């Protein structure tokens, strides 16, 4: 976890440095703001990972000499199949088309999205299909 954290923190530091140079040198604000936001976007997860990396045991994937037997165990729970990404995708499609072809397309769009949010969440809670 330490490498991941340091990578993001160093990137953020570099963006901060660039932002400081650019902000003071240029007569334009948009770029400085965007680079500042870039710095924050690296610092936020980077400092979170750093905070955790000092408080957790090294994970098997961070150890250089671990055997597969030591690393054996629970990895995660993965859905086998789900219709809700497709439903949500069609909902988003419909919402975007409403920007062009008329506001009425929001009704099916938001309807499909709501169905997908409810269905997807409950699928995750009860385990869903294999």
């Amino acid at each position, binding site marked *: 976890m330490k490498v991941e954290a340091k990578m993001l923190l160093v990137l953020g530091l570099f963006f901060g440095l660039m932002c400081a140079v650019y902000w003071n040198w240029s007569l334009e604000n948009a770029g400085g703001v965007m680079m500042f936001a*870039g710095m924050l976007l690296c610092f936020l997860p980077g400092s979170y990972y750093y905070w955790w990396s000092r408080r957790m045991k090294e994970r098997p994937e*961070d150890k*250089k000499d671990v055997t597969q037997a030591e690393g054996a165990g629970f990895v995660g729970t*993965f859905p086998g*199949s789900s219709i809700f*990404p497709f439903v949500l*995708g069609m909902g988003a499609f419909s919402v975007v088309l409403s920007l062009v072809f008329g506001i009425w397309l929001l009704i099916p769009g938001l309807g499909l999205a709501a169905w997908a949010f409810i269905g997807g969440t409950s699928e*995750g809670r009860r385990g869903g*299909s294999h």
Partner: protein
Amino acid sequence: MTDVLHTAPTTGDDHGHGHDEHHGPSGILKWLTTTDHKIIGLSYTVTAVVLFVIGGLFAEIIRLQLASPNGTLVSLAQYNELFTMHGSVMIYLFAGPFAFGALANIIVPIQIGAPDMAFPRLNALSYWLYLTGSITMLSGFFTAGGAANFGWVGYAPLSNSLNSPGAGADLWIGGLLLTGFSAIFTGVNLVATIFYLRAPGMTMFRMPIFTWNLLVTAILILLAFPVLTAGLIMLYADRHFGTHIFSNSGGGVPVLWQHIFWFWGHPEVYILALPFFGMVTEVIAVFSKKPVFGYKGMIFATLTIAALSLGVWAHHMFTTGVVLLPFFSIMSLLIAVPTGIKMFNWIGSMWRGQIWFSAAMLMSIGFLFTFLIGGLTGIYLASPPLDFMTHDTYFVVAHFHSVVMALVFGAMAGLYYWGPKFTGYLLHEGIGKAQFWFLFIGTQVFTFPQYLLGLYGMPRRMAVYPHDPQWQHLNELSTLGALLIGVSTILFVVNIGYSWKKYPAGDNPWDAQTLEWFTTSPPPHHNFYRLPQIRSERPTWDYNHPDHPSLAHGAHEETHA
């Protein structure tokens, strides 16, 4: 939902818990409901290749129009739509999604020993947003006003509702919103997968270069794409809600659109390029029978490119006269340093290796050559005086076509190299080599005349040009090159048809090095029955060649007891 466990290799149980075959819906419903990263990746691949062919057809029409000074193949209005949609399809819908959606989706989880992407349903959503976004953008051709026609960069104020009325422009914006979210979700997914789902022993500095590059790409996606999405929403508000963010008349700033667009647009160049760099790195190492030369240097070069890429956006805007020339010139020139390190390492990886000139390797060498030309002309353009001379001429067109055609070489190398892994069948090598030569000669014949045309002053985005024999001959030559590239694409499609399920690949046809070649071709549901010990960045090589294990970074340990 399936619980997935890492199983110890010592159990001798090849079908460990969580690796049982998938019993779900079949047929079209299986495709609609799948959350398997390999099937999603395959859908991405097929969609991206189809869009590549569509974008290529636009390119051929453009080149045929330009083969004579007063071409009459298309009208001026149609020409505007064609070059806009050619750029949009190739950049937004082919190169990006092919890089971080198609091959990344299939290969990255297998390379790090993960059972799937971290968020499989989000991954599926990414694909559906990509597909619907592509359909949205292309459907502009079926509206009364035609497709978007303001260039793939959508500069304000040309893209406002006065200068570009009609549904085509709105469909372009809508399509980009959808594909933009698709990219952001893929970025989140890749970062989470690489940070949390690596196999035991797969430390960060043992990940294959392809995975490393995709991690950096994903971080760049997260930094850049939200800016584009925000810009598009502002553009839509300007067009329909009466705001004046990008128009002078209401106190807005048209150049702000360029800042926002290129703040996304230049990192986007590296978002496109880095995955292909990764593919080429893997291919060169495997077909030279050597480990990657300068593994850590390669990673730091990638990170440096990513870091610098956020500070170079306004080198696209030198001629606006309101940007900080020295800052952007220095930053742009600095990118040549890490890119040079990469070039050096690619050549170093081949140096004194046993090179096997397979189709994938030839494509990678074609990449090196073409990318070198594109990269070096990029250094010219980073210098403001030269950029003032050549801005908006064919020199710039030739520069970025050298770069993106190099990425096409990378894409083909990736398909020839990894195709057998996810389909289980090899492609025909002979047709592949013929494809390479058509692509290679075609690309050079296509771009070289354009460099000269640019230096003679031919502006880009013109459907007709003055009667000048020199200009005409160079344009004819460029069109010939474009047709040769078209032939190479046809050969690729022919190759897929000819080799259809003909040459079974086996698990590891190339004697490759990384983890994806340890499992079966195609990999089972959740990818692995068992995993080898991981002691270097080449676990499969170490397993297959216990006499010649990797001496990774000077820290050699005995790998196989």
